[in-house]
């Protein structure tokens, strides 16, 4: 900001000519209007509104005028400069908008290009399936119990009322570790976790035990020497078969959909008495017009697992007083449940480790 020119020559003062000021203003406005881009407008700004522009120079002259002329000249130049600045601002806005619009168009990309630089990973459905099951039970206030895969024979069999000569032992073909006299097996069921739980904590017991089990089955589309089960165990006062039914109905509805329930058929398991097979209402046909249903093969029901009231002999072997407590237990295959839940026809899909299999489950499980 330059100060007023005090070194004017009072004699040679010429009042700023209105025509000159207006000409300078018009020239500026024309140049502004003619600037076609922001670059050109920058030059126009320098030429017509910069420090050395005619109007700026004229403005500087005002101080040299005799006082009586200053007011008029000041008004004239001020108005002209105001009009120029206003025009500059307006033109800048227009050109910036144009520029932005053009830039956005120029920067357009093909958003359909692939973006799969790092291949997708995924967790195994047997893991997420077991977690889904765990969450269902944890939300009921249960806990998730676990045990080792290589297990003591006594825990896998004897404690569960499967004595050495029990015919039921022949139903489960067991992997024995060497030497067999050491009585250590690969667990054939998740049930030893029941025994472990009762041996290591006091009732009330509400636990689910998802886990891996082994049997000497040849490996084919429906059999595997290794598969997965989930076991449930409740030991509390006043527990009945009705609580078992209620729990399994709840489990079925959470895992397979609202309205899916279960039915019981008499069966035999050494560790439960009474024992039942539990069937799941087919979640595809829901038992209505089942004949064409491929999931339940026309049955309306799907065999799901085994269950029953904990045999008091098991309670005794594990140190629970059968006079005070009753319990229920159930077990079902996780692999099998997922097979019919997802229409998987070959059990081996779970164990091949093919990286195309896992991502298909996404976040559904």
């Amino acid at each position, binding site marked *: 900001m330059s100060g007023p020119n005090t070194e004017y020559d009072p004699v040679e003062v010429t009042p700023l000519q209105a025509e000159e000021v207006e000409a300078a203003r018009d020239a500026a406005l024309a140049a502004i209007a003619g600037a076609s881009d922001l670059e050109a407008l920058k030059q126009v700004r320098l030429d017509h509104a910069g420090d050395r522009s005619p109007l700026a120079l004229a403005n500087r002259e005002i101080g040299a005028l005799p006082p009586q002329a200053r007011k008029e000249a000041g008004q004239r130049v001020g108005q002209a400069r105001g009009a120029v600045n206003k025009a500059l601002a307006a033109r800048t806005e227009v050109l910036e908008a144009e520029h932005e619009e053009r830039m956005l168009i120029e920067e357009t990309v093909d958003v359909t*290009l*692939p973006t799969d*630089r*790092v*291949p997708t*990973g995924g967790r195994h459905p047997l*893991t997420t399936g077991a977690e889904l099951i765990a969450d269902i039970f944890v939300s*009921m*206030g*249960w*806990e*998730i119990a676990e045990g080792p895969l*290589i297990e*003591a024979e*006594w825990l896998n069999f*004897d404690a569960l009322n499967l004595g050495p*000569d029990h*015919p039921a032992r*022949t139903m489960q073909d067991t*992997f024995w*570790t*060497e030497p067999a*006299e050491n*009585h*250590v097996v*690969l667990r054939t069921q998740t049930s030893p976790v029941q025994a472990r739980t009762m*041996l*290591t904590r006091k009732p009330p017991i*509400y636990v689910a035990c998802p886990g891996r089990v082994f049997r*000497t089955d040849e490996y084919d589309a429906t059999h595997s020497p290794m598969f997965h089960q989930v076991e449930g165990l409740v030991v509390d006062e006043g527990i*009945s*078969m*009705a*609580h*078992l*039914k*209620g*729990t399994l*109905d709840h489990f079925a509805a959470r895992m397979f959909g609202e309205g899916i329930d279960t*039915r*019981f*058929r*008499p*069966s*035999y398991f050494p560790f439960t*008495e*009474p024992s039942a*097979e539990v069937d799941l209402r087919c979640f595809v046909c829901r038992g209505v017009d089942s004949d064409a249903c491929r999931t339940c093969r026309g049955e309306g029901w799907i065999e799901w697992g085994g269950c029953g*009231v904990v*045999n*008091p002999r098991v309670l*005794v*072997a594990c140190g629970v007083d059968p006079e005070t407590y*009753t319990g229920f237990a159930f077990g079902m295959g996780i692999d099998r449940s997922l097979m019919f839940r997802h229409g998987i026809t070959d059990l081996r899909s779970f*164990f091949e*480790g*093919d*990286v*195309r299999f896992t*991502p298909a489950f996404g976040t559904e499980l």
Partner: protein
Amino acid sequence: MKAPVSWIREYVDLPAEVTTEALTDKLTLLGLKLEAIESPGAAITGPLVVGRVLTQDKEPQKNGKTINWCTVDVGDANGTGEPQGIVCGAHNFGPGDLVCVVLPGGVLPGGFAISARKTYGHVSAGMICSAAELGLPEDAFGGAGGIIVLPADTALQPGSDVRPLLGLDEEIIEFEVNPDRAYGLSLRGIARDAALGFSAPFSDPCDRVLPAADDAGHPVVVEDEAGCPVFVARTVAGFDPTAETPDWMASRLTAAGMRPISLAVDVTNYVMLETGRPIHGYDAEKVAGALRVRRATVGEKLTTLDGTARVLSEQDLVIADDSGPIGLAGVMGGETTEMSASTTRVLVESAHWEPVSMFRTGKRHKISSEAGKRNERGADPASCEAAADRVVELLCELGGATAEPGVTVVGSVPAPSAITIAADLPQRVAGLPIDTATAVAALEGVGCTVTLVAEVGEDGVPTNRLVAVPPTWRPDVTDPFDLVEEVLRVVGYDQVPSVLPREAAGRGLTRSQRLRRRVGRTLAGAGLSEVVCFPFVGQAAFDKLGLEADDPRRSTVRLANPLSNEEPEYTTTLLPNLLGTAARNVARGAAGAAVFETATVAIPREGAGPAPIYPTHTRPTEAEVEQLFAALPAQPLHLGVVLAGERERAGWWGEGRAADWADAIAVARRLATELGVDLEVVASVRQPWHPGRCAALRVGGRTLGHAGELHPRVVKAFDLPARAAALELDLDALMAAAPERAVPPTLSTYPVAKEDVALVVAEDVPAAQVEAALREGAGELLESIRLFDVYRSEQLGSDRKSLAFALRLRAGDRTLTDDEVKGARDGAVALAAERCGATQR
């Protein structure tokens, strides 16, 4: 167990309108589960009738064959009553024979439609059938592969439906019989449950008028009364060994899945199916002296009916005569006294055996017989006499024999023990209102004798007790809860209501369970796919990993009965099967495989003793429980990762990138960060990794695992893409190192001071060591440090490298002065110089 419906109905008077489906539904609800319904005749439709061959003209043909041009009387079945002209190529029949004729309009198994057609110069209007053409076993009805010729005494007239005679109208139910329901292995037992289910009258085949026992029968000495509580012996003489098994019996045996052999054998099998009581028949002339039931002596030998010479154990129960053992009691008879085509005198044995002994002998000698199956589950001890009598009856009736006087009965039927329950126990256990009358009726329905005892307890409260004596055919009913199950299966399992138990006050997932989920999500988020492998390996897998002979990982838990002799061990490392999985993916055309697995491995425990077998009538002590746990191998949870081939894809953005050592270590670091664990990465040498590209992963000075590039030989052995990398660590240990509570930094809003330093060090100085020195030297003002460049040049020399680090310095309470920043930087550089010989570039 397979049972023809008509046979079941012989003992239970079911209303005619009860369909097979209704029957199986009911039996399934009672615990005899339907496996399948077979209807052998279902594939045959249209007229299938009895025909009498009237004429048979043999006509040689140009092709060398001779055909028979027959006329056959089919009664009115053809609508005309005229003889039916049929061409037949078989020759095992003649005029006058009764045969099976399918008339035009009929369809045979396989969709084979029959119509009148011109052939060999005649119009053949139908077909004379062989067994195979009707879907029957080839040798059924003496067919021997040819036309079925019906017995001359067949009651059916020409033109009548032949299906009932052939058993083709039969439906056969296959039941899955649980091990506790031995009674389900008999028609008697199945019919009894059917009677129970439909409240229909039951006629027990064992309900017979029996001859009194005396001393005139074949002498029997039972030396082991516990092993053989009841032994019944009967004899018949004058048996005609040429007598044939009647068709009805043969077809029932066949339907039940047993092969007809000879009349005498078939009768014993038939009665076993009928009553559930296994019977053995001896050729009485070959038996020398008294039958003696005893345990075998060690080394005694016996050749059983299957031709196998067996060496007996002192636990085997045998039947011996003066010559030594002649049968493996209750399991299989012996060769020397076997009934043959010349047997005319039959000694019938019907005995009850102690189930456990049967089970052990069957297991020891690997014999699975129909008799053994029933004896080891426990047949009805009270059925011995009736079954023997029934066999005698049939041998007389069908084989022309005469029952000899003399009925040997040794021992007596053990009385089942009474079981007492509170009358409301069924109701309490079922969670369903079941009044006492209903419970009593149900128990009586299944054959129990029930007494109701009303008592007043010490507290003055009246309590009803039920004292139930189970029937002899239910050896499985021994416990109070067994009675509950019996009541419930009669009341109906479908009556149990659905009630949720009370809300439990659980503590949620354990820390380990939560962290495992976190680990899985982290790895999946890093682009890895989780896989599930079997834990079985063989030493060859360790060879492929290049493990030294004394590598501890070679010491495994071995399986006594592996599925494959190639993989008889439980693995100590996840890598072999994980590498195989990665290779399989590549072989299937994947450009790369980034896979991980979390699973337990088994590390044998030095000096672990056997896992004891404790009694089960009481809880083992704490010390005993500990002993059980201590007998098991250590089973830590491991994480295995294999990164093979393409890690980043090529694309419009540029080149792709194959996985290498750094990717494996990056996974470990990412995991450690996720878990909040301070992970130290240290150069290491360990198979199966590349000795120059392997890192030990250390936490708190302890090595938890290794990561890096695989040894080129391992890459080759597993057929993996070059530079494949892997990681394996003890996940249990890593998770245990995660802090219980995270302590977040205090966030300073004062300006950050950024300082870069480039340090020249010898090639073999690890970057981590330089970084550690800088970190320590910079002191507490250091907010973070990051290596951003490694530079090598001729100028530096081949054994030197330049490492460039970016330091960020900041204080929590003030803006740092230039002097402070310089001080920290100088301190860092000075310590790096001192510790690592670093010089500023």
